[in-house]
């Protein structure tokens, strides 16, 4: 969720194997190389069956297929199938497909032959430069784009070298295309399926292969079908919660409702339970029957907690807001940005706008709850887990078991949503601890109530912003003070030694608008509630503040909100580009239907530029209904425009739902929202029509797409609300007493 990434042990010093050196080998079997360990029928389906374009229920030929591992990422079958491993973690964003698409571009294979899989945690699958494997910060396509091109090209060159041997011709006279190597002079050709066993035994080329010019891309940029989708329409996709291993039992968890509380005494094993495991701040109950039985037993378990009274009192929304207000008023705060002289700038102001904005804590609420299956013996630990951080899971399991990396296997399962939450490892630590203690494979599944009350929440924030405008409406002074809990204070304390958290100020400093003096400060609010990376992180907080304030400045300046932004964004042609496109799509400047109004906002984040126009209306019940959203995104080089559009749609829905209703509040240590009856999610009847246009160019490198669609949604909605009602939204959520 951030560019710094969290939680993963560095693997500096280990040699990257992405060129395929020492990784070749010939495998005979049914399409599974050794690194894709079998986990019964589950493993075969999960690892082997993501076939591009396959119809639901398609059957696989029964005849054995010989496969050859050209390098650790590419396994080619005698049936011409091409299996590509993706180091990303699939949580809905289509990353495995997208990474395979980049690799396949240089490998020169037809997409319909491509299947994809997520490899187990191992150094050979780490990024060749960072030596890590973590999915977050909308980072995978950005960081892996060039390595994947090289991996694909290297494999291609090895297949060409194999053909040179077979055809007894120099490689320079051979061309690869569509999974076939052809002699330019004789026209003789050999398929990759035939060549792969030979290529697998060759040494990778010493010099880096030549890559295609972007203008020559034949696969990158196409809206190809994701191989995993076919599995997601017939129940065959195996998510973390679906793991099933022989001898497995079922665990549920009861965590101390107050953060920082501990188990006072291990409860007795209740009737019907197999075991109770004391996890320090939680108790796990194990059932041999079902997850439901474990849920029931956990719910009914009376646990005595040790909770310091002050901790309970501090886990309270009013108390936390009061603490934030005190820091806002009295500090301590740290300077985050200073440009020019604020007092001199403000002295030029004819009008000032001063507002205090507030945003709540909110939850990730992934549809799949936290879950992990673990099997631990004296010499092995095997984990099946939906995770954004397979390396970190492995490291945690090693620490808990005392086993070596080679003894700890981490199978990455499909995630039923990640959104930053599944970059944490709390649920993995719990499952491994339980499995170790009971000596039996166990699947831990949290209830929804545990998930919503034990998140690493998006931080709350308050922001006091004063904007000074001169007689022409130009911004002459910008003074923002932000108070918010720090995520990095938990995961990277050293990064906040100077009092600043780059995540908390992301979206609040370095703004693209032309301004006079700027002065931005940040103060860390310490709360008992743990905070974590939530889609777009600081941008989801600060962009609401900035884009709402810019809208208000436009109104004070007497200018149209689009025209005002265009006036102040002269140094950002790509933001101007998406603004113009989204505005054109929405019919900005034309009169909305009676009772309708539009708002606009934009933001550059995670390497991509996004503008959104939100149109709202009041429905028959007098409630605000989001009618339509028009979105333009410039993410530079675009791998799969349909996946980009899907991520914009997804981010817009989450951004709107969060602005409308999203919050977790506490009273004296108890969360007010514990399930979807009180934590409101968007549903079909609430969802607007969404139009997306992807306008990236290969002249620019790829930008991230998982998160940048989210930040503009809330302010565009709030600005539409102002246009409709004349009321400024300064506190989120808009509805539900935020």
């Amino acid at each position, binding site marked *: 969720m951030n560019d710094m990434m969290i939680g993963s042990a560095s693997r500096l010093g280990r040699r990257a194997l992405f060129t395929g050196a020492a990784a070749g080998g010939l495998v005979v079997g049914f399409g599974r190389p050794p690194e894709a360990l079998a986990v019964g029928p589950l493993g075969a389906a999960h690892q082997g069956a993501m076939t591009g374009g396959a119809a639901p229920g398609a059957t696989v030929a029964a005849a054995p297929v010989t496969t050859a591992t050209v390098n650790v990422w590419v396994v080619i079958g005698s049936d011409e199938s091409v299996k590509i491993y993706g180091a990303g973690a699939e949580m809905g964003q289509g990353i495995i497909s997208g990474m395979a698409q980049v690799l396949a571009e240089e490998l020169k294979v037809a997409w319909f032959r491509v299947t994809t899989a997520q490899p187990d945690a191992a150094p050979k699958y780490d990024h060749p430069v960072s030596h890590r494997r973590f999915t977050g910060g909308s980072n995978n396509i950005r960081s892996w784009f060039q390595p994947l091109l090289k991996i694909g090209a290297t494999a291609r060159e090895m297949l060409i070298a194999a053909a040179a041997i077979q055809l007894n011709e120099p490689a320079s006279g051979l061309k690869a295309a569509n999974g076939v190597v052809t002699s330019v002079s004789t026209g003789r050709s050999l398929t990759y399926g035939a060549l792969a066993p030979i290529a697998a035994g060759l040494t990778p080329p010493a010099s880096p292969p030549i890559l295609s010019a972007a203008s020559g891309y034949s696969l990158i940029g196409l809206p190809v079908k994701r191989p995993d989708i076919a599995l*997601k329409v017939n129940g065959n996709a195996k998510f973390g919660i679906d793991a099933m291993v022989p001898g497995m039992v079922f665990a549920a968890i009861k965590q101390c409702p107050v953060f920082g509380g501990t188990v006072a005494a291990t409860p007795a094993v209740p009737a019907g339970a197999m075991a109770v495991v004391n996890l320090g701040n939680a108790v796990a109950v194990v059932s041999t029957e079902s*997850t439901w039985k474990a849920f029931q037993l956990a719910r009914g378990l009376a646990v005595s907690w040790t909770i310091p009274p002050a901790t309970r009192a501090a886990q309270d929304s009013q108390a936390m807001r009061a603490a934030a207000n005190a820091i806002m008023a009295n500090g301590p705060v740290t300077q985050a940005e200073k440009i020019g002289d604020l007092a001199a700038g403000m002295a030029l102001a004819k009008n000032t706008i001063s507002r205090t904005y507030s945003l709540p804590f909110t939850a990730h609420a992934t549809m799949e709850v936290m879950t992990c299956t673990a099997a631990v013996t004296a010499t092995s630990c095997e984990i099946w887990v939906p995770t954004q951080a397979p390396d970190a899971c492995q490291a945690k399991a090693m620490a808990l078991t005392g086993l070596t990396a080679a003894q700890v296997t981490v199978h990455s399962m499909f*995630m039923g949503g990640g959104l930053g939450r599944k970059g944490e490892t709390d649920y993995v630590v719990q499952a491994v601890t339980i499995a170790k203690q009971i000596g039996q494979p166990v699947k831990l599944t949290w209830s929804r109530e545990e998930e919503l009350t034990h998140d690493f929440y998006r931080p709350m924030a308050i922001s006091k912003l004063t904007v000074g405008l001169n007689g022409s409406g130009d911004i002459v002074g910008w003074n923002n003070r932000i108070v918010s809990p720090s995520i990095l204070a938990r995961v990277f304390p050293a990064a906040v030694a100077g009092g600043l958290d780059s995540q908390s100020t992301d979206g609040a400093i370095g703004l693209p608008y032309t301004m006079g003096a700027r002065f931005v400060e940040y103060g860390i609010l310490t709360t008992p509630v743990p905070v974590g990376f939530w889609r777009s992180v600081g941008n989801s907080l600060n962009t609401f503040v900035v884009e709402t304030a810019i809208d208000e400045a436009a109104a004070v300046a007497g200018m149209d909100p689009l025209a005002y932004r265009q006036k102040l964004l002269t140094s950002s042609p790509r933001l101007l580009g998406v603004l113009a496109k989204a505005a054109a799509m929405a019919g900005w400047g034309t009169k909305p239907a009676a009772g309708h109004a539009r708002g606009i906002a934009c933001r550059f984040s995670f390497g991509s530029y996004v503008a959104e126009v939100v149109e709202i209306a009041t429905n028959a019940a007098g409630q605000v209904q989001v009618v339509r959203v028009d979105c333009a995104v410039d993410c530079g080089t675009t791998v799969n425009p349909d996946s980009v559009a899907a991520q914009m749609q997804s981010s817009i829905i989450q951004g709107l739902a969060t602005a409308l209703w999203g919050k977790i509040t506490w009273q004296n240590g108890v969360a007010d929202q514990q399930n979807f009856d009180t934590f409101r999610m968007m549903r079909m009847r609430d969802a607007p029509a969404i139009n997306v246009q992807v306008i990236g160019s290969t002249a620019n490198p790829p930008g991230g797409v998982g998160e940048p669609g989210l930040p503009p949604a809330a302010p565009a909605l709030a600005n539409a609300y102002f246009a409709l009602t004349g009321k400024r939204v300064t506190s989120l959520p808009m509805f539900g007493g935020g």
Partner: protein
Amino acid sequence: MITLNVNGQTKQVNVDPATPLLWVLRDVLGLTGTKYGCGIEECGACTVWIEGGAEKTCQMRVSDAAGKPIVTIEGIASTPIGKAVQQAWIDLQVPQCGYCQSGMIMAAANLLRRTPKPTDAQIDAAMSNICACGTYTRVRAGIHRAAGQ
């Protein structure tokens, strides 16, 4: 022993009769396509067909489903409308994480067999499933596509 009729097959299960059907499908029969999302009939991830209707199963006692024909996501391709919905979902690349989509497809196919050409208002009324990935635009388009609209 409770006798279940799932996807045309007869299954005997030896479980607490109070166990919700969802967990019998998942943990006992290994039909993991049907998902747990909330346990309180809010999200619809656990939707299957029972006796011709789409039902949430996270609170339905397995004993109440005994003997009744049950169709899960694993079996829906055997119905023409189920197959059409699945194909529309692939054509339009509806799923993202895919976790809620089993329930979404069961609900959509159930709507279509009752209302072959649903309006947007009918879709709004019938589809209460929660999708945290926000696939609603494509779910709506997928329903229209499966309807041949």
